């Protein structure tokens, strides 16, 4: 198990995929937010968070993800999540994240769903 979240970014044409590995807590959430806001500053309005490497998200992490969603709404952008564990998927649904961000089962479907041409 990782002690802190590792975030990697794959910048693609028109959007970016952010991969997480580890616990999305306060520190992990802040790191995701830092990366997301940097991508927004670069002019990217479509972000995909691939949580394949994350098993748990705590309430602080969720509140930070909600802030990122709000930011994306503010800039009229799109945020998607993919590859969630069943526990995280259920948590996102209960917390209302799925109302404002799209949730996809895997990365291929997410890219197809989020692409500007789609």
């Amino acid at each position, binding site marked *: 198990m990782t002690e802190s979240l590792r975030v990697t970014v794959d910048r693609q044409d028109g959007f970016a995929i952010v991969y997480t590995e580890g*616990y999305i807590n*306060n520190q992990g959430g802040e790191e995701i937010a830092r990366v997301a806001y940097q991508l927004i500053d670069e002019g990217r309005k479509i972000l995909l968070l691939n949580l394949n490497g994350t098993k748990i998200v705590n*309430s602080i992490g969720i*509140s930070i993800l909600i802030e990122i969603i709000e930011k994306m709404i503010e800039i009229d952008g799109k945020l998607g999540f993919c590859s969630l564990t069943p526990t995280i998927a259920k948590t996102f649904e*209960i*917390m209302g994240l799925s109302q404002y961000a799209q949730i996809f089962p895997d990365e291929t479907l997410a890219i197809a769903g989020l692409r500007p041409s789609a």
Partner: protein
Amino acid sequence: MTALSREDWEDLLVLSQTETAARPLVARLLAHWCQAHRAEAAALYIDRGNLLEHECTHGDRGFPEVYDPASPNPEFARGLAMVRLPAGALLYAPGDVPLADASTLLISEAAKALRLQRQLKEQRFQANYRGVELEALYDVGLKVAGTLDLEQLSEEILLHAVMLLDARRGALYLLGPEGYRLQRTFGGEAEEAFEADDSTLARFVAGGEAPAALLPGARHLLGVGIEIEGSPRGLIAVGDKESRRGVGPFRAADRRSLGLFANQAAIALENARLHLQALEKERLEREMSLAAEIQRQILPKGSPDVPGYEIAGWNRPAAQVGGDYYGFLDAGAGRFGLALGDVSGKGMPAALLVSTLHSALRLLAERDGVGIGFLERLNTHLADSSTANKFVTLFFAQLHPETGELDYLNAGHNPALLLRRDGHLDELGSGGVPLGLIRAARFESQRTDLSPGDLLCLYSDGITEACAPDDEEFGMERLGAILTSYRDMPLPELIEAIDGAVTAFAQGHPQADDQTVVLVRRVG
């Protein structure tokens, strides 16, 4: 001065309910305010406890995310002025001294609406998160019912506990024969083991200070015991409760939540433990069944054919595998050997020693014959190949069929009974200590003879020490009486008569010992 539009006024009226429109509207209000007060930049902060949280900025100047009015950051405070509002504050780069004018009042109303909006959002978040907690408990409950994999269960329980308590770290310990052992950790290292009676651990679980080594580096710890019907089975500990401002201590409600997980863990772990126990029992039963089969192979399958003699043997183990042994063997030079032994203990260890006895008897008897020193060699072999406190009582006899001469060795076994033709009952007593106890022990062989009509009975203590409900033992006298009464009966029927008498005597009282009988009658 830029006037507010009709839409701005309408948005302001419903600001607390319109999250997405809030920030652009406040930005316009701030722009309006800066223009009215000739300020370069201004930022609206909303009260959050004793701190002020940044909401919106107008102008190029940077403002901190969180502002503590009690101890303002000098770097940020330099050149800034502040207007306190009922629901927050306005920080601005100096312009005119603000008056309670319309634009300030509008900002103040916006701050109130935004604070209300934040409170509603926080309450909604908390209410939703209660749902997540309930779902998590439900999920763990399902996992408890759905898996018996101890590793998987431990991970599920610990991850859910860490997540729902907003902990940064956690550890799960299980109590075994060697104390508390670390089963699973999350977010960092944890102490590998604690003694079962570690007093600091006991105080910690009761709400006291945590042992320093439990989660090294954690500043705030919470732990609860995992118990089944008041008996300790383990411990869950979590460390450093997170908030947006760092880590802090856990609350009383967190102890209750962790307690719920400990209860779930207790059920899950107990189920897994019982499952493992059942598997182990099944494995042992398979082994015992195999051992019983091997033992059945060791014991004679029928009666040997020795001209002029009738011979029969019978054995009933008290457990699946027994500690009694009997056997017939060719002792060479036309002699016939018969043995009846009783190994100390029961179950698998006793069965293994029976197997050793069987092999050694055959090898030694075939190689050296039953002469002087036979029992000494057997004793040495058993002493070397059995564990301490394991021993064998043995009656071994060597019969010369033609002459009826019977050389016998009795190593601590019950006296064999020899019923003479004339009705006299001889006892063939002990000539030494049980085998395997004293490596240098010496044994004396003795000689008697079997005349036509004589009946020899070897037996184990499961016959003579069979107990009635009042603890009275069957005894040698009753055995002798049966031999006397039924002396001419075919041997298999005589064995049935002995068994019937012992069973009737016991009146259903459970018997702990194996029962074995060997009968030899000279007929010609």
